[in-house]
C-alpha cells in the first residue's frame, strides 16, 4: 500500500488490541507495526485515499483484530 503521492493521500495511525509478530508485516503490505507497552499495536503508514483506508479497516475486521482508534496525522 505504498502509494504515489496524490492529493488524497494521508498518513494514518491505526491502533489495534494485541501485539503482532513480525510475520504480519507482509500482510500489512507496506505499513509499519509498532508494539506498544500497553498491549496494543500501532499500524502506521501513508494511505492513498479513503478507499485505501477502508480497505485496511476491512482487512482488520476480517482478521478479527479489535480496532481501538484511527488518527489521521498531519501531512
Amino acid at each position: 500500500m505504498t502509494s504515489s503521492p496524490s492529493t488524497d493521500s494521508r498518513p494514518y495511525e491505526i491502533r489495534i488490541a494485541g501485539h503482532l509478530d513480525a510475520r504480519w508485516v507482509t500482510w500489512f503490505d507496506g505499513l509499519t507495526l509498532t508494539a506498544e507497552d500497553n498491549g496494543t499495536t500501532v499500524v502506521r503508514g501513508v494511505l492513498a485515499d479513503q478507499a485505501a483506508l477502508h480497505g485496511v479497516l476491512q482487512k482488520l475486521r476480517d482478521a478479527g483484530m479489535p480496532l481501538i482508534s484511527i488518527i489521521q496525522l498531519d501531512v
Partner: protein
Amino acid sequence: MAGPLIATKLHVPTRRPATVPRPRLTDRLSAHARLILVAAPAGFGKTSILTEWLASLGDDARVAWVSLDERDNDEGLFWSYLVTALDRAVPGVGAAALDLLASNPPSIEGVVATLVNDLDSRGTAIVLVLDDFHVIENAAVHAGTAFLVESLPAHVRLVIASRADPPFPLARLRTRGELVELRGADLRFSPSEASAYLNGVMGLTVQDDDIATLGDRTEGWIAAIQLAALSMQGREDAAAFIAGFAGDDRYVVDYLVEEVLHRQPDAVRRFLLETSILSRLTGDLCDAVTGTSGGGGTLEALDRANLFLVPLDDHREWYRYHHLFAEMLRARLLDEVPERIDELHLRASDWFERHGEMTEAIGHAIDAGAFDRAAEMIAVAMPGMQQQRQELTLVDWFEMLPAETVRAHPGLSLGFAGVLLSSGRTDGVDVLLRDAEAATGGTSDGIRAIRAGVALYRAAQALTRVDLETAAAQAGVAVGLSRDGSDIDRGSSAGLLGLILWARGDLADARESWSVSLDSLYRAGHRSDMLGGSIAMADIQLAQGRLTDAKETYRRALEVAAEADPALRGAADMHVGMSDLLRERGDLEGAHRHLADAEALGEYAGLPQNRHRRRIAAARLLQTAGDPASAISVLDEAERLYTADFFPDVHPIPARRARTQLAAGRKADALEWARRSGLSVDDELSYLREFEHITLARVRLADPADPSSIADANRLLERLLHAAEQGERGGSVLELLVLRSLALHKIGRAEEALDALQRTVALAEPEGYVRLFADEGGPMARLLAALAKRDGETAYLRRLRTAASGVRQPRPAAPRLIDALSDRELDVLRLLASELAGPEIARHLTVSLNTLRTHTKNIYAKLGVTSRREAVGRATELGLLTTK
C-alpha cells in the same frame, strides 16, 4: 434457474456435535420480529448459534440459507441465490420470481415484488438466513434487502448474520420493537459456558480460576476459547499453558493459532497453509493445489479434530475454513513462502477450469497474475454472465486486468464496453470501442450496438440537464445506429428521441418516433416499457387534440396489459389514462370504473409516476363532479408524491391546482400562485410553459379588480393561440378558443363570442370533447344556450349543455347500502379511517396484504366509492364509524 449456482452456498448448516447448548440465546431468537440481526466480529459463534436455534425449530421447519460472498454484490446473483434458497425450502414459492430472473435483462423490482406476493399468498412459515451479510457493499442490494425487511409477511422470518450493522433503519426497528438482536456482548461465552465447553465438550480438566483467567484473556471470544482448547489437548499442564497465554501480549487469535499449528505434523501444517487460498475445499482440489494425495482423508481428519473446518454439504465432500482461521493461515503463507502463492493459485485455477467452475477459475487466475489465461476464460464466460446481470463481477475483473491484456483479446474490449455501459459508466468506453474496431478491422453489429448504447446514455444525461440540442443529436445518432439492431435497442433509442422531440415541441415527429418505439418494445417483449411509452404517446396525442387516437393508444395498451398475470407494471397507469379520457368525453361512470380498476391493481402494478398521476385524474373527476375543494386536497397529495421522470413536465401540479382554486372560488390562492410563479403576460412563449401561461391568462381573466387584467389576458391569449397553431397543438388551440369566446363575452362582444364558440364546437365535435366546455361552468353554460338559440341545437350541443348545466353529477353510489358490510369489513373500515398505512393495517388485523386488498375492494364496491378517502367519507355519512 438463472445459471449455475454453487449448491454449497445454499447448504443449511447442521448442528455440530462439539458445542455447548445456549438456550438463553436461542430463546431470544424465537421472539417475533421483522428482522433478526446477529451482529458480531468474526469467530463469535454467529453461525453456530443460528444453527442451534434452527435445529430447535424441529424437522418440519422450512429453512432457507444463503452463505454470501463478495460475488453476491451482483444483483442478479444475489437474488438468484435468495430466491432459489426459498424455493428449496418451500417448493414452488420462487418459481415466478426465478422466471423473471431468467429474462434479459431481469427487472429486479419485479422479481422482489413477485417474490413477496408469492410468499404472502403461500402462507407457509419460513426462516430465511443471510449469512456474512457484511460482504454486501452494493447499495442496490442493500436497498432491495431493506425493502424485504419492510414487506415480508409475518410468517417469513428474516435473519441477517453480519460482522457489521447493515445500513437499515435499525434504530426505528428497535423502537418499534421489530428487531431482535444478538450482539458481541450476548455471544461472548460466560465462565460457566466456557467451563462447559472446555471440561464438558472437549474433555479437558481446567480449574475454575484458570477458566476465569482464560475468560479474561479471551473476553469470552469462542474462536479463541476453541483454539485454546485445541492447544491444551494432550498437554499435561493446562494451567501452565493458560498462565503463559495470559501473560503474553500478542493478539489472542494469532498466538493461539500459532500454538495449534506448532503441534501439527509438518505435512498437515503445510497442507493448511497452502489450501488457505481456497474459499472452498474438497479432497481432489486440495491434492491439485498441494501436489500431494490423500487430501480427502486429511480434510476428514481435520474435521474430526475440530480444526476449524466447516462442512458445506451433508456428504463431507466440500468444506471451508472458518474465516478467522483462514485469515491467520494466509498471513503465515504470505510471510513464509510468498514466491509460491502464484503457483498455488494457478493450480487452483486449473482445477476449477477442468471442473467447469469458471468464475472461481478466473478469480484464481487473476490472483495468480496469469492475466492472459484469465482473459481467455472471461471471453468465454462473459456472454452468459452479462445475460444474468452479473456485471459487477465483470467490471471488477476488467479493473484488475492490464489494458494490454484486454486489448490483446478481441472479444474482451467489446464485452467490457457493454458491461461498463450497463453499470452506468462511460469512462473508458470510447477507448474500448476503438480497440474493438481495430481488432475486428472495422465496425460490427456488436460494436454498433454499443455505440448506440453510449449515444443513448449521453442523450439521457443531456436531457436531465435540459440540454435539448445535445440530447436530440445524441438520440439521433442512437436511432441511426439501432436501425438494423435488436428490437430493444431500436425501441429504447426511438423512445428517448420521442421524449426529446416532445420536449422541443416537435409533436408530429415525436409521435412518429414513439410509434416506432412502442412497436419495437412490444416485439422485444418489454411490455412494461411499452406501457410506459404509451403514456407518452397518449399525452402527445392529447396535446395534438387527437382524443380518438389517444383513446386507441390506451385501448391497445390495456389489451397488452391484460395479456400478463400477475399484472404488469404500468397496467394501473393505463387505467388511469383511459379514465381521464373518458372523463373528458363525459363518460363519468366509465372514468370512475377505470380509476377503481387502477386502485384495485395495487401499488406494484403502477409505475412510480402513477402515484401522482392517479391522484391528478381523481382530482379532475372531483372537479368535474362539482367538488373542487376536495380536488385541491387530492392535488396536494399528488404534489407530495410527485416523482420526476424523463417526460417533460408540461402540466405542473401547482398550475393545475391554481385552476382548481379558481373553480373553487379561491381567487386569492390562485393569484398567489401567479405571483409566486414569476410568470408575466409579456413572457416569451414556449411549449414547455404553455400550460402555465394559459393558467396565468385564466387567473387574470378571473380578476375583476383590475380592468387592465382583462386586456392583458386577452393579449396573452391571442399570442398563445398563435403559438399553439404554429406548433400544431390542437388540444391547446381548442382550450384557447374556449377561453377566447368567454373573454369576448366578458367584454361585451357577444356576437364575436358566439362566432368563436361556434368555430370551437365544430372543431371539437369530431373528437368528442365534452368537459373542455362543461368544466367552464355557468358562463359557458349560458354561452352554449345562446349559441343553441342562435344556430339551433345539434345533438352534440345538447350534450354539451347538459354536461355544463352545473348539476352535481349523481354519485355512482346507491343512497343506501344494498349489501351490508360484514363484521370483518367493518373492522377494516375503522382502520381505514385511521392514519395507518396498508401494510400496518394488515399486520394489525394479522392478515396478509392480499387479503386486506380483497376486503378493501369489496368495501369500496359496497360503498360505491373508488378511494380510501371516499370510503371513509361515505362511511361517516352512513354512520358506520360510530363506535360500538
